[in-house]
């Protein structure tokens, strides 16, 4: 036993040394960059996934089946994953809940995305991604999952594409054959516009512990919600024992706010678990005046107007950030936007996506902002 262990350690050591030498031979790249030429899923310098299937769940929601590369880690049901998507040459990163169960035996996972009106990335995923595409991904993250050990009785309250984490949990519980008494209230426009509608109804037929209440909020042909709003009375009707259950909710902000209020009034806030995604964009202030500029690494915060470039702002605040030409050509002053909004003084272009590269010598504050510097 001990011998085998030290044998494994020696093997690991040799493997490590070999891979180090291979990287030295590939310098300034890594050996993995050459492996990528053969199969992008075998890389170690970044994790990628291949699109292996696409399927329309509703008229504007699509499930993408992804085969992850070798260094993938199995998710817990309910977790989400960050995915990089190139659109018109530009790389965007978005977070999507995994809708499949971790127990899937083909090693793939799915995300289910609804095309939001005006949403460039969601629209691209739903309409343009095709089988065979490779996308960079991160490993699963998030704390919205069911406790493993303690026996809880879940109440799922979901709306629209907010069904995804609940679906992953349901599928996982069923495949483990340990589905507890579960109540599920799901809001969707109408009976043909329910993501996973048929599968949910099938589960409700096959499993007596699972009660599904579909609430349809639109009349056929209407594109606005006209009925079926969440209310305490509705909750009492569909789930009389809601105060004994742990509620897992995911949906639009309005629904989540109403839920938070109801559970707080009943003193049950601790039993309400909510999944919401942080906005990837800061709101652009209508009158792009200056604002507070925070230099994160330096821990300095100062006021700035909308005309003074951020390099100057930093220098006036006593910092000495890297810089070169001071006219936007050399990119020595590049830094990362952590949050908020800046304006490119040359083009007037607004940068408001967290993670965007900011040339401080030609950008000014447009409202509050935080920079990596």
């Amino acid at each position: 036993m001990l011998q085998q262990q030290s044998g494994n350690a020696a093997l690991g050591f040799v493997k490590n040394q070999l891979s180090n030498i291979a990287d030295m031979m590939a310098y300034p790249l890594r050996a993995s960059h050459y492996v990528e030429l053969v199969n992008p899923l075998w890389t170690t310098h970044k994790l990628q996934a291949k699109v292996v299937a696409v399927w329309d769940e509703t008229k504007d929601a699509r499930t993408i089946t992804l085969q992850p590369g070798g260094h993938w880690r199995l998710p817990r049901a309910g977790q989400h994953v960050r995915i990089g998507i190139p659109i018109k040459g530009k790389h965007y990163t978005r977070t999507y809940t995994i809708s499949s169960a971790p127990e899937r035996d083909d090693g793939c996972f799915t995300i289910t995305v609804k095309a939001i009106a005006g949403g460039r990335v969601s629209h691209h995923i739903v309409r343009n991604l095709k089988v065979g595409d490779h996308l960079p991904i991160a490993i699963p993250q998030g704390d919205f999952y069911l406790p493993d050990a303690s026996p809880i009785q879940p109440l799922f309250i979901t709306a629209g594409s907010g069904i995804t984490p609940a679906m992953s949990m349901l599928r996982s519980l069923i495949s483990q054959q340990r589905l507890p008494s579960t109540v599920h209230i799901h809001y969707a426009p109408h009976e043909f516009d329910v993501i996973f509608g048929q599968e949910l109804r099938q589960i409700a037929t096959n499993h007596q512990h699972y009660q599904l209440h579909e609430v349809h909020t639109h009349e056929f042909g209407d594109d606005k919600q006209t009925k079926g709003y969440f209310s305490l009375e509705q909750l009492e009707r569909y789930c009389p024992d809601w105060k004994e259950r742990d509620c897992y909710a995911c949906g639009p902000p309005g629904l989540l706010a109403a839920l938070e209020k109801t559970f707080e009034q009943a003193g049950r806030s601790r039993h309400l678990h909510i999944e919401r995604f942080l906005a990837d964009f800061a709101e652009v202030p209508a009158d792009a005046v200056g604002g507070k500029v925070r230099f994160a690494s330096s821990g300095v915060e100062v006021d700035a107007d909308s005309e003074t470039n951020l390099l100057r702002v930093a220098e006036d605040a006593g910092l000495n950030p890297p810089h070169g030409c001071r006219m936007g050509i050399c990119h020595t002053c590049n830094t990362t936007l952590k949050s908020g909004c800046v304006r490119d003084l040359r083009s007037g272009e607004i940068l408001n996506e967290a993670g965007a590269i900011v040339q401080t010598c030609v950008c000014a504050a447009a409202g509050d902002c935080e920079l990596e510097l």
Partner: protein
Amino acid sequence: MATAKPLPVNLTDDQIDEFGREMEAIYDEAMASRGDRDRAYILKLMKTQRSMAFIGRMIIYASLFLLPTWPHALASWGATLLVAGIGVLMLGIAKILENMEIAHNVLHAQWDWMKDPDIQSNTWEWDSMSPADRWMHSHNVVHHTWTNVVGKDLDVGYGIMRVTPMQPWHPKYLLQPVYFVILMLFFEEGVALHEQALVDYFEGKKKPKDLGRILRHVGRKAWRQIRKDYLLWPAAGALVAAVINLFIPYPPLTVFLAVMAANAAANIVRNIWAFIIIFCGHFPDGVYAFTPDQIEGESKGQWYLRQLLGSANINGGRLFHILSGNLSHQIEHHLFPDLCSNHYPVVAPRVQALAARYGVPYNKASIWRQFGTTWKNNLRLALPGGKLPPAVATA
């Protein structure tokens, strides 16, 4: 606004401002047109380059099975050299593509707009002895900001040559035809030592301690390059040879030295090519150099004009432009250093026409003329005197 001393053109400041606005419009339009096709271009180029580098090295290895020590009919020095030559050429071209059309342009932040975390100017490292961050300083900041300003732009003669009569003559320049050839052969090493920091040190502006820190940084990078090309790849071949040597005579040392020589040859192929293309960019006949008082209080229009007068293009086809990293469009590169290079051929006709309308020269010629006059000037300027380009630049 006027500079302290005017630029050598027949244009008023207002006219130069309008020239600048027109140039800016071309730039804005080109920047706005970037998209999917450009991403596809750079990704495909990287894939091609990496494949060529790997296959080139494999062909070099394959050539060693033709060494005369092998007991088969094809084995001979001639066959070995022929096959190794193909491998060397392939590896050399891969290094040319990596240095010129990929790394040079990535490090100019031409591809930062894609926001691809793997293709960013501030994290990219390149296949050259000069560390990317040091090179970005001496190139992007010093050379591109102070283009052709004598005494400011280190690339004017690289500190060892006299490339314009505006540089005062010194006896050390007598040997510059020799430096010319040495720098051509060892361009990679030359670029690594091409440091503002060294100049600052010799002028007493930098302390030995600070210089030491930078030189160690350069040294680490150079060591990694040497370790790869002159140690590990030869050693991997020698290791295989040592095993084969147990059965048939196949001296590992010969294999080691052969791979080392092949890699050195590939590096020199790249050095010569890069040197020729880069020297054609600023030193042929008709290129202007400037004095510091010509850029004092410089406007954007005057900046554009200086970049245009201080650079020269080379004629060629699509493949030639790619292999030269589109530095055959040196003028466009200097006007728009952060526009992705595959757009230079697209904007070049517009820039040329714009220059013609304002009556400003647009220096574009065959590689024979550009490199020929560069060489001729190198010989002439080794001696005192020399001829300046016309006092007023006209098309």
